[in-house]
């Protein structure tokens, strides 16, 4: 019973922390978004979740960065309000690269908000491409780090980074449930020869068909979480990647897994004798589950993945998940997994009651 309470506590915790903890400050856009070389540029930077007015303007530093060594330093910084900052730049006549235009990143360092960065914020154009210059000389160092409980700011996805705690655990629950289902199918086949089955009967109240019911219940709950993961993923993808379906490995694998378990249920229900149906369904469950594993190695060679940890690895790299997110993400996974097993167990208990009532067991 304790684990059911734990699952509720963890899910409620992840819901509250996942929705209420603020995002770190970031830069949404700068204006103007293009400038000419040799120009005196007055740039407005628009922040997200920022509190620029909390510090005196001469403690704030602004750069337009070309690469790790070359950048322009902003002068005469003015704070218009909490989310708007103005800085002027004298853009050199020569660009650091002999091309017609370069993209620069905007960086703001603020004593209270910490450092925030917008990649490819502004484009600098130039008429001739004959020569180039070195932009070194501005020193980006001594940056402030915001040390409080907040989630990282990412461009394009913004607040929807919180979906990490709601959409991603669905995929983990699906995996755990399908592994449990395959394991119960293995157990069913192991105990299915007459000698073993007799030994099983002597243990109180356990019958061979229990393994089949468990396998089916776990598969059904896994199917539910698979569908939820797919639908929520499509909603998120529509607003983060621009398309609901993009032949991503994880989308493809979930779709194939759902097909397998739908076929499993059709196979299981197409026999009159329950023992025969259970046996063949168990065989198919193991066969199909094992044939799903190669997809993890094959598909990454064919489709580029938009998901983090793109090489088919279900875990995240360290740059995708910081320590603050881990404190919500891992409890969410544990909570949802326990909840999935709880649902599956309810389904299994119902099926056992039904079979008892109809005299099948």
């Amino acid at each position, binding site marked *: 019973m304790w684990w059911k309470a734990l699952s509720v506590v963890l899910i409620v915790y992840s*819901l509250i922390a996942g*929705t209420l903890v603020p*995002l770190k400050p970031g830069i949404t856009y700068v204006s103007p978004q293009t400038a000419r070389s040799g120009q005196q540029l007055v740039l407005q930077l628009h922040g*997200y979740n920022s509190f620029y007015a909390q510090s005196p303007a001469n403690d704030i530093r602004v750069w337009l960065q070309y690469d790790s060594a070359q950048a322009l330093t902003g002068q005469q910084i003015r704070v218009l309000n909490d989310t708007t900052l103005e800085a002027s730049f004298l853009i050199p006549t020569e660009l650091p690269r002999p091309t017609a235009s370069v993209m620069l990143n905007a960086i703001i360092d603020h004593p209270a908000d910490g450092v925030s960065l917008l990649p490819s914020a502004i484009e600098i154009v130039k008429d001739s491409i004959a020569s180039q210059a070195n932009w070194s000389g501005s020193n980006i160092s001594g940056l402030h780090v915001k040390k409080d409980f907040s989630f990282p700011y990412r461009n394009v*996805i*913004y*607040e*929807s980074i*919180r*979906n990490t705690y*709601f*959409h991603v655990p*669905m995929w983990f629950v699906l995996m755990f449930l399908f592994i449990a289902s395959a394991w119960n199918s293995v157990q069913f086949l192991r105990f299915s020869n007459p000698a073993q089955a007799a030994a099983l009967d002597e243990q109180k109240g356990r019958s061979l068909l229990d393994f089949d019911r468990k396998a089916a219940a776990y598969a059904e709950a896994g199917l*539910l979480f698979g*569908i*939820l993961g797919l*639908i*929520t993923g499509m*909603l*998120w993808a*529509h*607003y*983060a990647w621009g398309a609901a379906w993009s032949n991503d490995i994880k989308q493809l694998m979930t779709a194939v897994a759902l097909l397998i378990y739908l076929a499993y249920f059709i196979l299981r229900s197409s026999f009159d004798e329950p023992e025969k149906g259970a046996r063949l369904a168990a065989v198919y469950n193991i066969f199909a589950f094992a044939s799903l594993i190669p997809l993890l190695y094959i598909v990454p060679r064919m489709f580029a993945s938009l998901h983090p940890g793109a090489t088919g690895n279900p875990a995240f790299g360290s740059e995708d998940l910081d320590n603050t997110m881990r404190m919500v993400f891992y409890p969410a996974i544990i909570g949802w997994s326990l909840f999935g097993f709880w*649902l599956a167990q*309810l*389904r299994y208990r*119902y099926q056992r*009651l*039904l079979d*008892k*009532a*109809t*005299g099948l067991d």
Partner: protein
Amino acid sequence: MKFFKARIFFTIILFLAISLPTVLAQGNRDYMRETGKINVVIGVIVLIFIGIVTYVLRLDRKLTKLEHQLKDDKNGWTN
């Protein structure tokens, strides 16, 4: 669970899920992309909630049926 017809309910939910994003994207305001796309998170949470509640409701209905079955013939118990 007689107070609403499950099938009609699901049809409405499905219809809303398909049509809402298009409706919301009409005009100059895109509600899903406003305020840092926070509504996408709300949408995801609501979808998960609907999915799980649907599953539990189905189980509930099956259990009710089983209860009726058991009430009808008490001889159904073999154990």
